[in-house]
């Protein structure tokens, strides 16, 4: 009991939030994708991944490699093959529906109304084509549809297929109790064995049925017959009850109590939510609580809260060697920059400061813990920035002209003001120019050159020109001076 309580005390509130957020994400994936083929394939890929992990853990080298390859390929395939399903699952009306909403159960298709109207149209020799989609997406198979979103009623169906209606030649798509599209063009069947009395309407019905899991009802305007295309078969129904049964079977409509259906739906979602929570809790503990891996890496040292009056002159080290432990998944996923040693300089003084490196100084990602760190202290030397005026001297290089003597040199400006640490500037007496070559000089003149600030931590005061002008005077060497 005490062990369990001790274990509970190690769980932070962030851990609970972490588990709840990820459980909810998993639950939403289930809610949005449930019933689609993509979801089934996703479950398959997850099973493969688990198989791969198991194979790897028990040392099945070839199996784990093969399953890994299949899993990787399957992940790509699911995106390419089921892109339409994924798109339709994610295409919700607003963010609230995406994050929070549940798929509302569609009102069941009024099968009796549809069947009665279909036979009414057959009697009146009004041609019609009705599509009842199942789970497969039809987006790639049908064309030219006009959004309609009308409630199914005999009048609505009759008016759509009334011969003078501009959209009467196309098919309609019925989802639930709504006609979602009208004037839809269906792919034609290429079969050669169809009886000659089947026209284009029947070929279109069969064409879509062959390519999808949709049920298509065709009403012949010449013979007044009602035919259903399902899979590869075309069946003529003379009895409305038979057609009604087929449609109910296709749409999975049973005569159960609606309250029971709602109860079942609630139960299903509750079970899914609990399973999501359990799965994610298991994954979380697997990821974070196993502390089986130790690694060591170099962490950069970051200095914060430096008093503005000081500059960092030098440090004993730029990085610390930290030894970390945690679950292998977290340790493997460590990236540079996630581990950081942070030293607070707010209480530092001028000169040498020694800071101990402890657990408190080291920033680690959640679930990764410190084993040890080297060095255990850092020396930081702070300096006060000052401004110093220094003379500028030309750095002449190359071979001096043989018969000429550089008699006078004048630099403009003669001095330059630089900003730097007081201890650094204590040892700097001159600012030198970039090397100026002597080889090309043949008469007095001037050259413009830049300044070289050494050490590089020195800076020119603002508005200072980085360039200086060197005026020089060359004189002929006296004969006695030539060697």
């Amino acid at each position, binding site marked *: 009991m005490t062990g369990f309580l001790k274990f509970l005390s190690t769980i932070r509130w962030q851990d609970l939030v972490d588990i709840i957020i990820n459980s909810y994400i998993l639950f939403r994936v289930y809610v949005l994708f449930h019933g689609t083929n993509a979801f089934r394939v996703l479950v398959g890929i997850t099973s493969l991944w688990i198989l791969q992990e198991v194979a790897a853990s028990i040392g099945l080298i070839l199996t784990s490699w093969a399953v890994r390859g299949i899993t990787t390929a399957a992940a790509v395939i699911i995106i390419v093959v089921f892109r339409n399903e994924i798109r339709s699952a994610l295409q919700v009306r607003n963010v609230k529906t995406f994050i929070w909403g549940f798929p509302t159960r569609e009102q069941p298709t009024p099968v009796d109304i549809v069947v009665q109207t279909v036979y009414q149209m057959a009697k009146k020799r009004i041609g019609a084509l009705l599509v009842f989609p199942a789970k497969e997406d039809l987006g790639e198979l049908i064309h030219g549809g006009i959004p309609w979103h009308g409630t199914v009623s005999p009048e609505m169906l009759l008016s759509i297929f009334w011969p003078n209606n501009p959209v009467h030649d196309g098919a309609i798509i019925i989802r639930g109790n709504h006609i979602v599209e009208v004037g839809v063009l269906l792919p034609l069947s290429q079969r050669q064995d169809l009886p000659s009395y089947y026209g284009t309407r029947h070929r279109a019905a069969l064409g879509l049925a062959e390519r999808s899991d949709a049920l298509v009802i065709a009403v012949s305007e010449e013979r007044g017959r009602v035919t259903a295309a399902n899979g590869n078969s075309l069946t003529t129904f003379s009895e409305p009850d038979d057609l009604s049964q087929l449609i109910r079977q296709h749409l999975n409509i049973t005569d159960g109590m609606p309250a029971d259906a709602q109860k079942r739906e609630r139960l299903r979602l509750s079970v899914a939510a609990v399973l999501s929570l359990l799965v994610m809790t298991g994954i979380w503990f697997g990821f974070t609580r196993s502390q089986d891996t130790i690694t060591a890496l170099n962490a950069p040292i970051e200095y914060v809260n430096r008093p503005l009056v000081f500059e960092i002159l030098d440090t004993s080290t730029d990085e610390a060697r930290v030894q970390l432990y945690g679950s292998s998944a977290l340790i493997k996923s460590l990236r540079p920059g996630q581990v950081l040693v942070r030293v607070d300089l707010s209480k530092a003084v001028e000169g040498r400061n020694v800071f101990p490196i402890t657990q408190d100084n080291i920033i680690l990602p959640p679930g990764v813990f410190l084993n040890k760190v080297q060095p255990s202290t850092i020396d930081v030397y702070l300096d006060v920035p000052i401004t110093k005026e220094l003379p500028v001297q030309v750095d002449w290089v*190359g071979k*001096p002209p043989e018969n000429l*003597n550089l008699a006078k040199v004048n630099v403009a400006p003669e001095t330059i003001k630089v900003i730097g640490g007081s201890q650094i500037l204590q040892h*700097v*007496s001159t600012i030198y120019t970039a090397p100026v070559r002597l080889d090309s000089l043949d008469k007095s003149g001037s050259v413009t050159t830049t300044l070289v600030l050494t050490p590089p931590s020195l800076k020119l005061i603002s508005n200072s020109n980085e360039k200086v002008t060197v005026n020089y005077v060359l004189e002929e*060497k006296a004969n006695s001076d030539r060697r």
Partner: protein
Amino acid sequence: MVFTPLSGEEFMYGRQKKFLLLTSAALAIIIPIALSPVYAQVNGQANPQPAEIADPSQRPKLSQATMCERVDNLAPLRPGMVFSVSNGQVCCYTSFDPVPQATLVYHRWFHRDELSTQTRLRVYPPRWATYSVIQLRDTDKGPWRVEITDQNGRVLNVLRFSIAD
């Protein structure tokens, strides 16, 4: 750079020859004493700080300071701002007028802000000229400066020059 023992040599103006003869015996003792601290500095040992000359009028006045290739017959030869390393040497020539009392001056040679060597020179009333010299090597190329200071470290002048190819 090679330090030359001759760099501590002291010269006097021509009309002081009589004085030179009279004091030659004394110099025979003074010169080794004067040179020894120079070697001590080269070896990195600190010089004892001489007493401050409180009265400014008693301090020597630098009348000429120049960098030159050679000093010949008590005069600087081929003065300039840039010297070729092939010359083999470079001199810092200084003359003081007046020199109210015998005192010390220093020639402090810096190669890129780093003290390379320091020469202690003794000057005598009423006027005195003296110089220091360094032998050049290939590694001595670059900008140099020589600080001429009195015995209390007061900078009397700074000469800037370069050693080139």
